[in-house]
Protein backbone atom coordinates (compact mmCIF):
# COMPACT_ATOMS: atom_id res chain seq x y z
CA UNK A 1 0.00 0.00 0.00
CA UNK A 2 1.04 3.55 -0.65
CA UNK A 3 0.09 7.09 0.26
CA UNK A 4 0.70 9.92 -2.17
CA UNK A 5 0.49 13.54 -1.05
CA UNK A 6 0.07 16.16 -3.73
CA UNK A 7 0.84 19.76 -2.85
CA UNK A 8 -0.10 22.78 -4.90
CA UNK A 9 2.57 24.11 -7.24
CA UNK A 10 5.32 25.93 -5.32
CA UNK A 11 3.49 25.49 -2.00
CA UNK A 12 6.20 23.41 -0.32
CA UNK A 13 9.96 23.40 -0.29
CA UNK A 14 10.69 19.71 0.16
CA UNK A 15 13.78 18.91 2.25
CA UNK A 16 16.81 18.71 0.04
CA UNK A 17 18.09 15.31 1.16
CA UNK A 18 14.78 13.74 0.13
CA UNK A 19 14.89 15.43 -3.26
CA UNK A 20 18.51 14.43 -3.85
CA UNK A 21 17.84 10.76 -3.07
CA UNK A 22 14.71 10.74 -5.21
CA UNK A 23 16.64 12.37 -8.06
CA UNK A 24 18.86 9.27 -7.93
CA UNK A 25 15.74 7.07 -8.04
CA UNK A 26 16.57 6.00 -4.49
CA UNK A 27 13.86 5.62 -1.86
CA UNK A 28 14.48 7.07 1.60
CA UNK A 29 13.52 5.16 4.73
CA UNK A 30 11.59 7.57 6.97
CA UNK A 31 9.29 7.48 10.01
CA UNK A 32 6.03 9.21 10.82
CA UNK A 33 6.64 12.78 11.98
CA UNK A 34 10.02 13.35 10.37
CA UNK A 35 10.26 16.68 8.63
CA UNK A 36 9.13 16.62 5.02
CA UNK A 37 9.38 20.24 3.96
CA UNK A 38 8.50 23.84 4.70
CA UNK A 39 5.73 26.02 3.33
CA UNK A 40 6.96 28.54 0.80
CA UNK A 41 4.03 30.91 0.91
CA UNK A 42 1.07 31.82 3.10
CA UNK A 43 -2.48 31.12 2.06
CA UNK A 44 -5.55 32.96 3.31
CA UNK A 45 -7.73 30.29 4.89
CA UNK A 46 -10.87 32.09 3.76
CA UNK A 47 -10.07 31.35 0.15
CA UNK A 48 -9.75 27.66 0.78
CA UNK A 49 -13.15 26.33 1.73
Amino acid at each position, binding site marked *: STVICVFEKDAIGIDNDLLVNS*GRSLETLVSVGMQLGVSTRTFARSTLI
Partner: protein
Amino acid sequence: MGNGNSREAKESRRSRLRHKLQKFRIHRRHLRSSRNSAGMVIQRTVSAEDFSGIALLTLIGAEMKFKDKWLACVSFGEQTFRTEISDTTQKPIWNSEKKLLLEKNGPSLARVSVFETNRVARNKIIGYCELDIFDFVVQEPESTCKSFNLLDPTSSNVVGSIFLSCAIEDPVETERRFAKRILSIVDYNEDGQLSFSEFSDLIKAFGNLVAANKKEELFKAADLNGDGVVTIDELAALLALQQEQEPIINNCPVCGEALQVSDKLNAMIHMTLCFDEGTGNQVMTGGFLTDRQASYGWMFKLSEWTHLSTYDVGLNTGSSASYIVVIDRKSKRLVEELIDSKIVLSMRAIYQSKIGLRLMDQGAKEILQRLSEKQGKKMSSVESAQKIPRFLEFFKDQINMAEVKYPLQHFKTFNEFFIRELKPGARPIACMNRNDVAVCAADCRLMAFQSVEDSTRFWIKGKKFSIRGLLGKNVNPNAFLDGSLVIFRLAPQDYHRFHVPVSGVIEQFVDVSGSLYTVNPIAVNSKYCNVFTENKRTVAIISTAEFGKVAFVAIGATMVGSINFVRKEGEHVKKGDELGYFSFGG
Protein backbone atom coordinates in the same frame (compact mmCIF):
# COMPACT_ATOMS: atom_id res chain seq x y z
CA MET B 1 -19.88 -41.28 -22.44
CA GLY B 2 -16.17 -41.73 -22.20
CA ASN B 3 -16.25 -44.06 -19.26
CA GLY B 4 -17.23 -47.68 -18.95
CA ASN B 5 -14.59 -49.13 -21.25
CA SER B 6 -12.73 -52.27 -20.42
CA ARG B 7 -9.27 -52.03 -18.92
CA GLU B 8 -7.74 -53.71 -21.99
CA ALA B 9 -9.35 -51.24 -24.35
CA LYS B 10 -8.17 -48.34 -22.20
CA GLU B 11 -4.61 -49.61 -22.10
CA SER B 12 -4.69 -50.03 -25.84
CA ARG B 13 -5.83 -46.43 -26.33
CA ARG B 14 -3.17 -45.17 -23.99
CA SER B 15 -0.57 -47.06 -25.94
CA ARG B 16 -1.80 -45.37 -29.11
CA LEU B 17 -1.56 -41.98 -27.47
CA ARG B 18 1.90 -42.70 -26.15
CA HIS B 19 2.87 -43.76 -29.63
CA LYS B 20 1.51 -40.49 -30.98
CA LEU B 21 3.51 -38.48 -28.45
CA GLN B 22 6.60 -40.52 -29.14
CA LYS B 23 6.27 -39.55 -32.78
CA PHE B 24 6.34 -35.93 -31.71
CA ARG B 25 9.52 -36.56 -29.80
CA ILE B 26 11.20 -38.34 -32.67
CA HIS B 27 10.25 -35.40 -34.86
CA ARG B 28 11.74 -33.07 -32.26
CA ARG B 29 14.97 -35.07 -32.16
CA HIS B 30 15.28 -34.79 -35.90
CA LEU B 31 14.51 -31.11 -35.74
CA ARG B 32 17.25 -30.55 -33.20
CA SER B 33 19.78 -32.72 -34.95
CA SER B 34 19.30 -30.89 -38.20
CA ARG B 35 19.57 -27.43 -36.68
CA ASN B 36 22.61 -28.15 -34.56
CA SER B 37 25.20 -25.95 -36.24
CA ALA B 38 28.06 -27.61 -34.37
CA GLY B 39 27.24 -30.81 -36.18
CA MET B 40 26.66 -32.67 -32.98
CA VAL B 41 24.08 -35.43 -33.22
CA ILE B 42 21.95 -35.55 -30.14
CA GLN B 43 21.03 -39.01 -28.97
CA ARG B 44 18.10 -39.02 -26.64
CA THR B 45 16.32 -42.12 -25.54
CA VAL B 46 12.62 -41.68 -25.06
CA SER B 47 10.61 -44.36 -23.40
CA ALA B 48 7.05 -44.92 -24.50
CA GLU B 49 6.18 -45.02 -20.83
CA ASP B 50 7.69 -41.58 -20.34
CA PHE B 51 4.33 -40.07 -21.07
CA SER B 52 3.45 -36.48 -20.53
CA GLY B 53 1.55 -33.77 -22.28
CA ILE B 54 -0.84 -30.86 -22.08
CA ALA B 55 -4.50 -31.37 -22.93
CA LEU B 56 -6.63 -28.41 -23.89
CA LEU B 57 -10.18 -29.11 -22.70
CA THR B 58 -12.97 -26.86 -23.97
CA LEU B 59 -16.40 -26.74 -22.38
CA ILE B 60 -18.41 -25.60 -25.37
CA GLY B 61 -21.99 -25.60 -24.13
CA ALA B 62 -24.93 -27.73 -23.00
CA GLU B 63 -28.53 -28.54 -23.72
CA MET B 64 -30.64 -28.66 -20.58
CA LYS B 65 -34.31 -29.44 -20.02
CA PHE B 66 -35.35 -26.06 -18.68
CA LYS B 67 -34.26 -22.44 -18.83
CA ASP B 68 -31.96 -21.00 -16.19
CA LYS B 69 -28.53 -19.43 -15.74
CA TRP B 70 -25.86 -22.12 -15.91
CA LEU B 71 -22.25 -22.65 -15.02
CA ALA B 72 -20.05 -25.70 -15.40
CA CYS B 73 -17.14 -26.97 -13.33
CA VAL B 74 -14.31 -29.30 -14.25
CA SER B 75 -12.58 -31.26 -11.53
CA PHE B 76 -9.33 -32.89 -12.49
CA GLY B 77 -7.00 -34.31 -9.90
CA GLU B 78 -6.79 -31.82 -7.06
CA GLN B 79 -7.95 -28.95 -9.20
CA THR B 80 -11.37 -27.52 -9.95
CA PHE B 81 -12.13 -24.84 -12.50
CA ARG B 82 -15.34 -23.12 -13.45
CA THR B 83 -16.85 -21.31 -16.39
CA GLU B 84 -18.62 -17.99 -16.38
CA ILE B 85 -22.37 -17.99 -15.69
CA SER B 86 -24.47 -18.14 -18.86
CA ASP B 87 -27.48 -15.99 -19.69
CA THR B 88 -30.90 -17.41 -18.83
CA THR B 89 -31.30 -20.12 -21.44
CA GLN B 90 -31.95 -23.78 -22.06
CA LYS B 91 -28.80 -23.99 -24.22
CA PRO B 92 -25.92 -22.32 -22.40
CA ILE B 93 -22.76 -21.56 -24.37
CA TRP B 94 -19.50 -21.14 -22.44
CA ASN B 95 -16.64 -21.85 -24.84
CA SER B 96 -14.31 -22.02 -21.84
CA GLU B 97 -10.86 -23.53 -22.15
CA LYS B 98 -8.50 -25.04 -19.65
CA LYS B 99 -5.11 -26.63 -20.07
CA LEU B 100 -4.67 -29.82 -18.05
CA LEU B 101 -1.48 -31.65 -17.32
CA LEU B 102 -1.50 -35.29 -18.34
CA GLU B 103 1.34 -37.22 -16.82
CA LYS B 104 2.46 -40.69 -16.13
CA ASN B 105 0.69 -41.98 -13.05
CA GLY B 106 -1.23 -38.73 -12.85
CA PRO B 107 -4.99 -38.23 -12.95
CA SER B 108 -6.83 -38.86 -16.20
CA LEU B 109 -10.48 -38.82 -15.13
CA ALA B 110 -12.24 -35.47 -15.36
CA ARG B 111 -15.62 -34.82 -13.77
CA VAL B 112 -17.74 -32.12 -15.38
CA SER B 113 -20.67 -30.77 -13.37
CA VAL B 114 -23.38 -28.38 -14.50
CA PHE B 115 -25.03 -26.10 -11.97
CA GLU B 116 -28.13 -23.97 -12.21
CA THR B 117 -27.67 -20.65 -10.52
CA ASN B 118 -30.38 -18.19 -9.57
CA ARG B 119 -31.66 -16.38 -6.52
CA VAL B 120 -33.66 -19.38 -5.26
CA ALA B 121 -31.25 -22.19 -6.06
CA ARG B 122 -27.77 -20.76 -5.89
CA ASN B 123 -25.31 -23.09 -7.59
CA LYS B 124 -27.43 -26.24 -7.40
CA ILE B 125 -25.90 -29.21 -9.24
CA ILE B 126 -28.24 -30.50 -11.94
CA GLY B 127 -26.10 -32.96 -13.84
CA TYR B 128 -22.62 -34.36 -14.24
CA CYS B 129 -20.54 -36.60 -16.43
CA GLU B 130 -17.15 -38.22 -16.13
CA LEU B 131 -14.70 -38.71 -18.94
CA ASP B 132 -11.26 -40.11 -19.30
CA ILE B 133 -9.13 -37.45 -20.95
CA PHE B 134 -6.71 -40.06 -22.33
CA ASP B 135 -9.59 -41.88 -23.99
CA PHE B 136 -11.06 -38.69 -25.32
CA VAL B 137 -7.93 -37.51 -27.11
CA VAL B 138 -7.29 -40.93 -28.60
CA GLN B 139 -10.84 -41.25 -29.89
CA GLU B 140 -11.03 -37.65 -31.10
CA PRO B 141 -7.46 -36.66 -32.00
CA GLU B 142 -8.51 -33.60 -33.97
CA SER B 143 -10.40 -32.00 -31.09
CA THR B 144 -13.86 -32.35 -32.54
CA CYS B 145 -16.88 -31.52 -30.44
CA LYS B 146 -18.35 -34.49 -28.63
CA SER B 147 -21.59 -34.82 -26.70
CA PHE B 148 -21.83 -36.41 -23.24
CA ASN B 149 -24.95 -37.25 -21.28
CA LEU B 150 -25.43 -35.35 -18.05
CA LEU B 151 -26.68 -37.53 -15.20
CA ASP B 152 -28.73 -36.46 -12.21
CA PRO B 153 -26.40 -37.12 -9.22
CA THR B 154 -29.33 -38.48 -7.15
CA SER B 155 -31.15 -40.69 -9.66
CA SER B 156 -28.69 -41.18 -12.54
CA ASN B 157 -31.44 -40.08 -14.95
CA VAL B 158 -30.26 -38.18 -18.00
CA VAL B 159 -30.98 -34.49 -17.41
CA GLY B 160 -29.26 -32.96 -20.42
CA SER B 161 -26.14 -33.14 -22.50
CA ILE B 162 -22.86 -31.25 -22.57
CA PHE B 163 -20.57 -30.57 -25.51
CA LEU B 164 -16.83 -30.82 -25.02
CA SER B 165 -13.70 -30.88 -27.11
CA CYS B 166 -10.20 -31.87 -26.10
CA ALA B 167 -6.85 -31.91 -27.84
CA ILE B 168 -3.29 -32.73 -26.97
CA GLU B 169 -0.90 -29.87 -27.53
CA ASP B 170 2.09 -30.80 -29.66
CA PRO B 171 4.97 -31.11 -27.15
CA VAL B 172 7.39 -29.72 -29.74
CA GLU B 173 5.26 -26.63 -30.09
CA THR B 174 4.84 -26.37 -26.32
CA GLU B 175 8.59 -26.44 -25.86
CA ARG B 176 9.24 -23.89 -28.58
CA ARG B 177 6.65 -21.49 -27.18
CA PHE B 178 7.95 -21.99 -23.69
CA ALA B 179 11.54 -21.19 -24.60
CA LYS B 180 10.49 -17.99 -26.35
CA ARG B 181 8.17 -17.03 -23.55
CA ILE B 182 10.61 -17.53 -20.73
CA LEU B 183 13.33 -15.66 -22.57
CA SER B 184 11.04 -12.79 -23.47
CA ILE B 185 10.49 -12.18 -19.76
CA VAL B 186 13.98 -10.79 -19.35
CA ASP B 187 13.92 -8.90 -22.62
CA TYR B 188 13.09 -5.78 -20.63
CA ASN B 189 13.28 -3.31 -23.48
CA GLU B 190 11.40 -5.71 -25.78
CA ASP B 191 13.73 -5.18 -28.69
CA GLY B 192 13.74 -8.88 -29.47
CA GLN B 193 17.37 -9.15 -28.40
CA LEU B 194 18.92 -10.06 -25.10
CA SER B 195 21.89 -8.31 -23.61
CA PHE B 196 24.27 -10.22 -21.39
CA SER B 197 22.77 -8.69 -18.24
CA GLU B 198 19.24 -9.68 -19.30
CA PHE B 199 20.45 -13.21 -19.92
CA SER B 200 22.27 -13.29 -16.57
CA ASP B 201 19.08 -12.38 -14.70
CA LEU B 202 17.31 -15.32 -16.24
CA ILE B 203 20.04 -17.84 -15.49
CA LYS B 204 20.11 -16.60 -11.90
CA ALA B 205 16.40 -17.22 -11.57
CA PHE B 206 16.88 -20.82 -12.67
CA GLY B 207 18.67 -21.47 -9.40
CA ASN B 208 21.49 -23.48 -10.98
CA LEU B 209 24.90 -22.37 -9.70
CA VAL B 210 26.80 -24.37 -12.31
CA ALA B 211 24.89 -22.69 -15.11
CA ALA B 212 25.27 -19.32 -13.40
CA ASN B 213 29.04 -19.77 -13.45
CA LYS B 214 28.89 -20.71 -17.10
CA LYS B 215 26.62 -17.91 -18.22
CA GLU B 216 29.39 -16.07 -20.09
CA GLU B 217 30.17 -19.27 -21.95
CA LEU B 218 26.52 -19.91 -22.72
CA PHE B 219 25.98 -16.38 -23.89
CA LYS B 220 29.08 -16.46 -26.07
CA ALA B 221 27.94 -19.67 -27.71
CA ALA B 222 24.69 -18.04 -28.76
CA ASP B 223 26.21 -14.72 -29.80
CA LEU B 224 27.54 -16.03 -33.07
CA ASN B 225 28.45 -12.68 -34.63
CA GLY B 226 29.96 -11.40 -31.38
CA ASP B 227 28.01 -8.15 -31.29
CA GLY B 228 27.12 -8.49 -27.62
CA VAL B 229 23.44 -9.26 -28.16
CA VAL B 230 21.58 -12.31 -29.35
CA THR B 231 18.09 -12.76 -30.68
CA ILE B 232 15.46 -14.57 -28.67
CA ASP B 233 15.29 -17.29 -31.32
CA GLU B 234 19.04 -17.93 -31.06
CA LEU B 235 18.85 -18.14 -27.32
CA ALA B 236 15.80 -20.38 -27.42
CA ALA B 237 17.74 -22.81 -29.59
CA LEU B 238 20.72 -22.64 -27.26
CA LEU B 239 18.57 -23.19 -24.22
CA ALA B 240 16.93 -26.24 -25.78
CA LEU B 241 20.34 -27.64 -26.69
CA GLN B 242 21.75 -27.03 -23.23
CA GLN B 243 18.75 -28.70 -21.69
CA GLU B 244 19.53 -31.78 -23.69
CA GLN B 245 23.19 -31.85 -22.65
CA GLU B 246 23.12 -30.57 -19.10
CA PRO B 247 19.96 -29.16 -17.58
CA ILE B 248 20.33 -25.60 -16.42
CA ILE B 249 16.88 -25.09 -14.98
CA ASN B 250 16.77 -26.59 -11.51
CA ASN B 251 13.87 -24.63 -10.15
CA CYS B 252 10.70 -23.34 -11.73
CA PRO B 253 11.26 -19.59 -11.98
CA VAL B 254 7.56 -19.02 -11.35
CA CYS B 255 6.74 -21.11 -8.29
CA GLY B 256 10.25 -21.99 -7.18
CA GLU B 257 9.50 -25.70 -7.03
CA ALA B 258 12.50 -27.97 -7.51
CA LEU B 259 12.19 -29.68 -10.89
CA GLN B 260 13.22 -33.20 -11.69
CA VAL B 261 16.18 -32.54 -13.93
CA SER B 262 15.97 -36.02 -15.39
CA ASP B 263 12.46 -35.42 -16.62
CA LYS B 264 12.93 -32.45 -18.94
CA LEU B 265 9.61 -32.61 -20.73
CA ASN B 266 7.64 -32.75 -17.51
CA ALA B 267 9.72 -29.89 -16.13
CA MET B 268 8.96 -27.79 -19.18
CA ILE B 269 5.26 -28.63 -19.03
CA HIS B 270 5.19 -27.81 -15.33
CA MET B 271 6.66 -24.38 -16.07
CA THR B 272 4.33 -23.78 -19.00
CA LEU B 273 1.27 -24.41 -16.84
CA CYS B 274 2.80 -22.41 -14.02
CA PHE B 275 3.17 -19.44 -16.34
CA ASP B 276 -0.41 -19.79 -17.48
CA GLU B 277 -1.92 -20.19 -14.06
CA GLY B 278 -3.64 -17.08 -12.95
CA THR B 279 -2.45 -14.83 -15.74
CA GLY B 280 -5.89 -14.65 -17.24
CA ASN B 281 -4.35 -16.41 -20.22
CA GLN B 282 -6.99 -19.07 -19.99
CA VAL B 283 -10.65 -18.45 -20.36
CA MET B 284 -11.64 -20.84 -17.60
CA THR B 285 -10.18 -19.74 -14.32
CA GLY B 286 -10.11 -21.30 -10.95
CA GLY B 287 -13.25 -20.11 -9.24
CA PHE B 288 -12.51 -22.61 -6.53
CA LEU B 289 -8.80 -22.08 -6.23
CA THR B 290 -7.28 -24.14 -3.49
CA ASP B 291 -4.60 -22.57 -1.33
CA ARG B 292 -2.07 -24.81 -2.99
CA GLN B 293 -3.06 -23.62 -6.43
CA ALA B 294 -3.20 -20.04 -5.37
CA SER B 295 0.24 -20.19 -3.90
CA TYR B 296 1.54 -21.67 -7.13
CA GLY B 297 -0.14 -19.15 -9.38
CA TRP B 298 1.25 -16.00 -10.86
CA MET B 299 -1.24 -13.77 -9.17
CA PHE B 300 -0.18 -14.85 -5.76
CA LYS B 301 3.39 -14.08 -6.67
CA LEU B 302 2.62 -10.60 -7.83
CA SER B 303 2.99 -9.06 -4.45
CA GLU B 304 5.80 -8.62 -2.01
CA TRP B 305 3.13 -9.34 0.62
CA THR B 306 2.92 -12.97 -0.41
CA HIS B 307 5.29 -14.26 2.22
CA LEU B 308 3.11 -12.91 5.03
CA SER B 309 0.94 -15.94 4.69
CA THR B 310 3.29 -18.33 2.98
CA TYR B 311 6.58 -18.24 4.75
CA ASP B 312 7.80 -21.03 2.53
CA VAL B 313 8.01 -18.45 -0.23
CA GLY B 314 11.01 -17.21 1.65
CA LEU B 315 12.89 -14.02 1.20
CA ASN B 316 16.10 -15.50 2.56
CA THR B 317 16.75 -17.86 -0.29
CA GLY B 318 20.42 -17.25 -0.78
CA SER B 319 21.41 -17.02 -4.40
CA SER B 320 17.85 -16.47 -5.54
CA ALA B 321 17.36 -13.39 -3.38
CA SER B 322 17.38 -9.91 -4.81
CA TYR B 323 17.50 -6.59 -3.07
CA ILE B 324 15.77 -3.27 -3.15
CA VAL B 325 18.26 -0.69 -1.97
CA VAL B 326 16.95 2.20 0.12
CA ILE B 327 18.72 4.85 2.16
CA ASP B 328 17.99 5.14 5.87
CA ARG B 329 17.45 8.83 6.54
CA LYS B 330 18.39 8.54 10.20
CA SER B 331 21.65 6.63 9.81
CA LYS B 332 22.34 7.97 6.29
CA ARG B 333 23.31 4.46 5.29
CA LEU B 334 22.20 2.35 2.37
CA VAL B 335 20.03 -0.54 3.46
CA GLU B 336 19.37 -3.64 1.40
CA GLU B 337 15.83 -4.92 1.68
CA LEU B 338 15.54 -8.54 0.66
CA ILE B 339 12.98 -9.54 -1.89
CA ASP B 340 12.64 -12.95 -3.42
CA SER B 341 13.99 -12.95 -6.95
CA LYS B 342 11.12 -15.17 -8.06
CA ILE B 343 8.75 -12.41 -7.04
CA VAL B 344 10.92 -9.88 -8.84
CA LEU B 345 10.90 -12.01 -11.96
CA SER B 346 7.16 -12.58 -11.78
CA MET B 347 6.52 -8.89 -11.33
CA ARG B 348 8.79 -8.01 -14.22
CA ALA B 349 7.11 -10.60 -16.39
CA ILE B 350 3.72 -9.07 -15.86
CA TYR B 351 4.23 -5.44 -15.04
CA GLN B 352 7.20 -4.59 -17.22
CA SER B 353 6.14 -6.35 -20.35
CA LYS B 354 3.47 -5.34 -22.78
CA ILE B 355 2.65 -9.00 -23.32
CA GLY B 356 2.40 -9.63 -19.60
CA LEU B 357 -0.03 -6.81 -19.07
CA ARG B 358 -2.10 -7.91 -22.01
CA LEU B 359 -2.52 -11.17 -20.13
CA MET B 360 -3.81 -9.23 -17.16
CA ASP B 361 -7.30 -9.13 -18.49
CA GLN B 362 -10.43 -8.56 -16.47
CA GLY B 363 -10.41 -12.15 -15.26
CA ALA B 364 -6.97 -11.77 -13.75
CA LYS B 365 -7.96 -8.55 -12.00
CA GLU B 366 -10.87 -10.40 -10.45
CA ILE B 367 -8.53 -13.10 -9.20
CA LEU B 368 -6.41 -10.41 -7.53
CA GLN B 369 -9.54 -9.00 -5.92
CA ARG B 370 -10.71 -12.43 -4.75
CA LEU B 371 -7.29 -13.37 -3.41
CA SER B 372 -7.12 -10.12 -1.47
CA GLU B 373 -10.61 -10.59 -0.03
CA LYS B 374 -9.79 -14.17 0.86
CA GLN B 375 -6.57 -13.03 2.50
CA GLY B 376 -8.52 -10.43 4.46
CA LYS B 377 -10.85 -13.07 5.89
CA LYS B 378 -7.97 -15.39 6.65
CA MET B 379 -5.97 -12.70 8.43
CA SER B 380 -9.01 -11.69 10.49
CA SER B 381 -9.56 -15.22 11.81
CA VAL B 382 -8.51 -16.22 15.30
CA GLU B 383 -6.21 -18.88 13.83
CA SER B 384 -4.24 -16.20 12.02
CA ALA B 385 -2.84 -14.97 15.36
CA GLN B 386 -0.54 -18.00 15.26
CA LYS B 387 1.36 -16.32 12.44
CA ILE B 388 2.38 -13.33 14.55
CA PRO B 389 5.41 -14.88 16.34
CA ARG B 390 6.90 -16.14 13.05
CA PHE B 391 6.28 -12.78 11.44
CA LEU B 392 8.08 -11.06 14.31
CA GLU B 393 10.95 -13.51 14.08
CA PHE B 394 11.20 -12.91 10.35
CA PHE B 395 11.39 -9.15 10.79
CA LYS B 396 13.09 -9.15 14.18
CA ASP B 397 15.48 -6.34 13.29
CA GLN B 398 12.76 -4.15 11.85
CA ILE B 399 9.85 -4.34 14.29
CA ASN B 400 10.39 -2.82 17.71
CA MET B 401 7.77 -4.27 20.04
CA ALA B 402 8.88 -1.86 22.78
CA GLU B 403 7.19 0.99 20.94
CA VAL B 404 3.94 -0.90 20.24
CA LYS B 405 1.03 0.30 22.40
CA TYR B 406 -0.26 -3.11 23.47
CA PRO B 407 1.55 -6.33 24.43
CA LEU B 408 1.59 -9.25 22.01
CA GLN B 409 -1.20 -11.18 23.74
CA HIS B 410 -3.56 -8.26 23.07
CA PHE B 411 -3.75 -9.11 19.37
CA LYS B 412 -6.39 -11.73 18.66
CA THR B 413 -5.85 -11.89 14.88
CA PHE B 414 -3.00 -11.19 12.52
CA ASN B 415 -4.89 -8.26 11.05
CA GLU B 416 -5.20 -6.69 14.52
CA PHE B 417 -1.44 -6.97 14.89
CA PHE B 418 -0.92 -5.66 11.38
CA ILE B 419 -2.73 -2.43 12.22
CA ARG B 420 -1.05 -2.16 15.64
CA GLU B 421 -0.93 1.25 17.28
CA LEU B 422 2.21 2.77 18.73
CA LYS B 423 2.72 4.22 22.19
CA PRO B 424 2.16 7.97 22.49
CA GLY B 425 5.42 9.73 21.70
CA ALA B 426 6.90 6.76 19.81
CA ARG B 427 7.05 8.96 16.72
CA PRO B 428 8.15 12.50 17.60
CA ILE B 429 6.54 15.10 15.34
CA ALA B 430 9.02 17.59 13.88
CA CYS B 431 8.43 21.27 14.78
CA MET B 432 5.11 20.49 16.42
CA ASN B 433 4.32 24.14 17.00
CA ARG B 434 4.99 25.23 13.43
CA ASN B 435 2.23 24.48 10.98
CA ASP B 436 4.42 25.69 8.12
CA VAL B 437 6.50 22.52 8.50
CA ALA B 438 5.00 19.41 6.88
CA VAL B 439 5.89 15.97 8.22
CA CYS B 440 6.08 12.42 6.92
CA ALA B 441 2.73 10.65 6.84
CA ALA B 442 3.92 7.06 7.36
CA ASP B 443 6.76 4.78 8.32
CA CYS B 444 7.80 4.05 4.78
CA ARG B 445 10.14 4.29 1.84
CA LEU B 446 9.69 7.81 0.51
CA MET B 447 10.14 9.46 -2.85
CA ALA B 448 9.66 13.23 -3.16
CA PHE B 449 9.56 15.43 -6.23
CA GLN B 450 9.16 19.15 -6.48
CA SER B 451 7.18 18.75 -9.69
CA VAL B 452 5.11 16.11 -11.43
CA GLU B 453 7.54 16.28 -14.32
CA ASP B 454 10.39 15.24 -11.99
CA SER B 455 8.30 12.38 -10.62
CA THR B 456 7.74 10.97 -14.08
CA ARG B 457 11.35 11.54 -15.08
CA PHE B 458 12.83 9.72 -12.09
CA TRP B 459 10.24 7.29 -10.85
CA ILE B 460 6.68 6.91 -12.16
CA LYS B 461 7.00 5.38 -15.63
CA GLY B 462 3.37 4.49 -16.35
CA LYS B 463 2.47 6.25 -19.57
CA LYS B 464 -0.98 7.22 -18.36
CA PHE B 465 0.06 8.81 -15.07
CA SER B 466 -1.34 12.27 -14.41
CA ILE B 467 -2.57 14.23 -11.41
CA ARG B 468 -6.02 14.25 -12.94
CA GLY B 469 -5.94 10.45 -13.22
CA LEU B 470 -4.56 10.01 -9.70
CA LEU B 471 -7.30 12.09 -8.08
CA GLY B 472 -10.12 10.56 -10.13
CA LYS B 473 -12.99 12.27 -11.88
CA ASN B 474 -14.79 13.39 -8.71
CA VAL B 475 -12.00 15.64 -7.41
CA ASN B 476 -11.25 18.97 -9.05
CA PRO B 477 -7.56 18.64 -9.96
CA ASN B 478 -6.92 22.27 -10.93
CA ALA B 479 -5.23 23.27 -7.65
CA PHE B 480 -2.79 20.36 -7.95
CA LEU B 481 -1.72 20.45 -11.58
CA ASP B 482 2.06 20.85 -11.79
CA GLY B 483 2.21 20.44 -8.01
CA SER B 484 4.73 18.65 -5.81
CA LEU B 485 4.46 14.94 -5.17
CA VAL B 486 5.49 12.80 -2.21
CA ILE B 487 5.13 9.02 -2.36
CA PHE B 488 5.08 7.02 0.88
CA ARG B 489 5.44 3.28 0.16
CA LEU B 490 4.70 0.92 3.03
CA ALA B 491 6.41 -2.48 3.27
CA PRO B 492 4.86 -5.52 5.00
CA GLN B 493 6.83 -5.08 8.21
CA ASP B 494 5.97 -1.40 8.59
CA TYR B 495 3.64 0.20 11.10
CA HIS B 496 0.53 0.41 8.97
CA ARG B 497 -1.27 3.48 10.21
CA PHE B 498 -0.93 6.71 8.30
CA HIS B 499 -0.90 10.19 9.79
CA VAL B 500 -1.77 13.74 8.79
CA PRO B 501 1.23 15.49 7.20
CA VAL B 502 -0.15 19.04 7.59
CA SER B 503 -2.51 20.78 9.97
CA GLY B 504 -5.85 21.85 8.51
CA VAL B 505 -9.44 20.87 7.85
CA ILE B 506 -10.53 17.71 6.03
CA GLU B 507 -12.60 19.07 3.19
CA GLN B 508 -13.72 15.83 1.59
CA PHE B 509 -13.14 12.12 1.14
CA VAL B 510 -13.61 10.60 -2.30
CA ASP B 511 -13.42 6.85 -2.96
CA VAL B 512 -12.09 5.77 -6.34
CA SER B 513 -12.70 2.15 -7.29
CA GLY B 514 -10.01 0.18 -9.07
CA SER B 515 -7.72 -2.82 -9.22
CA LEU B 516 -5.33 -4.17 -6.63
CA TYR B 517 -2.03 -4.30 -8.47
CA THR B 518 1.17 -4.28 -6.49
CA VAL B 519 2.65 -0.85 -5.74
CA ASN B 520 6.15 -2.28 -5.67
CA PRO B 521 8.74 -0.12 -7.49
CA ILE B 522 8.87 -2.74 -10.26
CA ALA B 523 5.27 -1.93 -11.18
CA VAL B 524 5.65 1.81 -10.59
CA ASN B 525 8.71 1.83 -12.84
CA SER B 526 6.88 0.08 -15.67
CA LYS B 527 5.83 2.12 -18.65
CA TYR B 528 2.97 -0.28 -19.27
CA CYS B 529 1.55 -0.23 -15.77
CA ASN B 530 -0.39 2.60 -14.16
CA VAL B 531 -0.87 1.44 -10.59
CA PHE B 532 -1.42 4.91 -9.11
CA THR B 533 -4.22 5.72 -11.50
CA GLU B 534 -5.77 2.25 -11.76
CA ASN B 535 -5.67 0.93 -8.20
CA LYS B 536 -8.46 1.28 -5.66
CA ARG B 537 -7.87 4.43 -3.58
CA THR B 538 -9.39 7.08 -1.36
CA VAL B 539 -8.60 10.76 -1.82
CA ALA B 540 -8.78 13.12 1.16
CA ILE B 541 -8.51 16.84 0.51
CA ILE B 542 -7.05 18.81 3.42
CA SER B 543 -7.32 22.62 3.42
CA THR B 544 -4.51 24.40 5.21
CA ALA B 545 -3.43 27.99 5.79
CA GLU B 546 0.23 27.25 5.13
CA PHE B 547 0.17 24.88 2.13
CA GLY B 548 -3.16 25.58 0.48
CA LYS B 549 -4.95 22.39 -0.43
CA VAL B 550 -3.18 19.08 0.06
CA ALA B 551 -4.47 15.92 -1.61
CA PHE B 552 -3.84 12.84 0.52
CA VAL B 553 -4.31 9.71 -1.60
CA ALA B 554 -4.36 6.32 0.17
CA ILE B 555 -3.80 3.57 -2.42
CA GLY B 556 -4.64 -0.08 -1.80
CA ALA B 557 -2.57 -2.93 -3.23
CA THR B 558 -2.57 -6.69 -3.68
CA MET B 559 -3.54 -8.41 -0.41
CA VAL B 560 -3.68 -5.10 1.47
CA GLY B 561 -6.66 -3.52 -0.23
CA SER B 562 -8.66 -2.33 2.76
CA ILE B 563 -8.39 1.45 3.30
CA ASN B 564 -9.83 2.81 6.54
CA PHE B 565 -10.03 6.41 7.73
CA VAL B 566 -10.54 7.31 11.40
CA ARG B 567 -11.34 11.02 10.87
CA LYS B 568 -14.39 12.57 9.23
CA GLU B 569 -15.09 15.33 6.74
CA GLY B 570 -15.09 18.78 8.32
CA GLU B 571 -12.80 17.77 11.19
CA HIS B 572 -9.80 19.87 12.13
CA VAL B 573 -6.65 17.77 12.13
CA LYS B 574 -3.19 18.53 13.42
CA LYS B 575 -0.07 17.27 11.75
CA GLY B 576 0.98 13.96 13.22
CA ASP B 577 -2.61 12.97 14.08
CA GLU B 578 -3.58 9.48 13.07
CA LEU B 579 -5.67 9.61 9.91
CA GLY B 580 -6.30 5.95 9.08
CA TYR B 581 -4.80 2.57 8.30
CA PHE B 582 -4.40 -0.15 5.67
CA SER B 583 -5.35 -3.72 6.45
CA PHE B 584 -5.58 -7.09 4.73
CA GLY B 585 -8.59 -7.49 2.48
CA GLY B 586 -10.04 -6.49 -0.85
